[in-house]
């Protein structure tokens, strides 16, 4: 029952990420291998400080990799100019927009920056893309509100709408479900799932909602301090990799329910 081989959009080969500090490499995570295809929702899980954000920032071109290869549509990441990369990858970061005085519509329209002229005015095509983004995230009613008036859940939908308006084949989200209640966590992840399958996008998100991610992701990436695993959630459960996420004396992973439970 395997489908046709899909287009690979983002690929990493023996990638190692981290920081440069005083000319010294400080490696946070090594030997990362994966290949993401279009239409896939990929959940990235791991303990705090394991390097999820560093990996996402490296993939989005915000900081240099230490070694290995990142291929965006079979072309090395570093071969892209800032603008070319903006046509391939859009991001949703944990940081809120710097100016809360923007209206929702203004914020989402900014996602069209890679396509607009030097003046930044929107063409008809840009307006269509902005409207589509508003519809997909159900944020039409918020369009003329200012960002400081929004709740966390609404703000997250708007941030996703901005990334959608940027109209890139790859979207990278850093912990899109933090600060949200259970309903909004499920809502956001379902929205991502729908966007990935309907719009043939590759969506990579990091999260601490491991049980939700297992239910919704096509593939998952598990980062531990020993190794990094990339597979479908079922295979990862079978292989027992989720158990390696956290120290076993406090919580353990229940294979049958797909949840973590606290050891009493």
């Amino acid at each position: 029952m395997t489908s046709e081989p899909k287009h690979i959009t983002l690929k990493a080969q023996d990638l190692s990420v981290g920081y440069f500090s005083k000319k010294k490499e400080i490696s946070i995570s090594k030997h990362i291998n994966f290949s993401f295809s279009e239409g896939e929702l990929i959940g990235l899980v791991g303990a705090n400080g394991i390097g999820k954000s560093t990996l996402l920032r490296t993939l989005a071109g915000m900081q240099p990799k230490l070694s290995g290869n990142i291929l965006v549509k079979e072309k090395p990441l570093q071969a892209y100019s800032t603008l070319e990369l903006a046509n391939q990858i859009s991001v949703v970061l944990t940081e809120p927009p710097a100016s809360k005085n923007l209206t929702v519509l203004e914020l989402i329209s900014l996602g069209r920056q890679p396509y607009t002229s030097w003046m930044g005015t929107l063409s008809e095509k840009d307006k269509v893309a902005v409207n589509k983004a508003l519809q997909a995230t159900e944020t039409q009613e918020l369009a003329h509100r200012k960002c400081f008036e929004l709740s966390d859940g609404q703000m997250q939908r708007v941030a996703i709408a901005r990334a959608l308006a940027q109209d890139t084949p790859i979207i990278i989200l850093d912990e899109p479900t933090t600060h949200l209640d259970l309903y909004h966590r499920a809502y956001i992840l379902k929205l991502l799932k729908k966007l990935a399958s309907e719009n043939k996008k590759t969506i990579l998100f990091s999260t601490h909602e491991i049980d939700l991610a297992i239910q919704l992701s096509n593939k998952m990436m598990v980062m531990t301090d020993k190794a990094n695993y990339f597979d479908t959630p079922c295979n990862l459960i079978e292989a027992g990799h989720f158990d390696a996420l956290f120290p076993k004396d406090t919580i353990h992973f229940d294979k049958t329910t797909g949840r973590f439970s606290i050891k009493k």
Partner: protein
Amino acid sequence: MQTVQTYRAYFIVLCFSLFAVFLLNISLGSVSIPLDEVIKGFFGGNASKETWNYIIIDYRLPKAITAILAGGGLAVSGLLMQTLFRNPLAGPFVLGLSSGASLGVALLILGAGAFGGFLGTALVSEWSLVIASALGSFLVLLAVLMVTFRVKDTMAILIIGLMFGSVTAAVVAVLSYFSNAEKLQQYIFWSFGSLGNQSWEGILLLSCCTILGILIAFVSSKSLNGLLLGENYAKSMGLHIKRTTLLIILATSILAGSITAFAGPIAFVGLAVPHITRQFFKTSNHLVLIPAVLVCGSVLMLLCDTIAQLPFSEYTLPINAITSLVGAPVVIWLLVRKRKLLF
């Protein structure tokens, strides 16, 4: 994004009030000239009194033009700094440019005493003040640019600007301690700021600098809009952060540097005007905000100057004090009313 068209009515009102305040500014002063005479004086005809003609063309018109250039330029550079540092309290002088100018002038006036005698007086002419303050702010600009290349964090640039300010204030204090009362008075008078006494050559040079600075700002408006989301987002949308930061700092320096060189340090216009403008123009699009802030700044400056002339009296108050007296309450009022200051 809302466009200029959305705010056409606002712009018409603004431009009309600019014209009205401009005429008012020229008409009022120690000698008050009736409005119709002012208009007559402009359009070829001669005002009924020869002295009025002289006052309008040689004294009040250059001062009004300087006010328009200084007010508009400082307000735009304030807007640029607030967006670049994403800080509602930023103004044109956070980079330490006016401190640099003060240092230049202080060294010239207070330091000239050290040369003594003839050389000392020859050094302190009108143009040498302009050159000294331009040189001072240019040196600070160079230092800031060097820092920009080395430091990744824009907030670090902000702090370094403030440190430059402290250092120059200290140097000025040391210089004042060793100089005589006369020199000290001359320096303090410069620090009061002055829009008047400009030669037409000076005004031409000032307009060139202001127009250049505003053009750079206007061309960067798309990047400025992108920066409203923060550097990381802006970069993910294809913006070259370093290049943009450099351009914005350059524009601010040209504006604030040249205005300070000619008119002395003028406080609060750069900080307050962008906030006042945002009350009327409910947009964050710099394509709209830059021209709006420009005109608002000019109007406010002309108003402040009209007050400073103390109509019907022979006294003229220091313009720097008036802009603070008008600007600070406005910012406090905005804060109290809206309970937060957004940019």
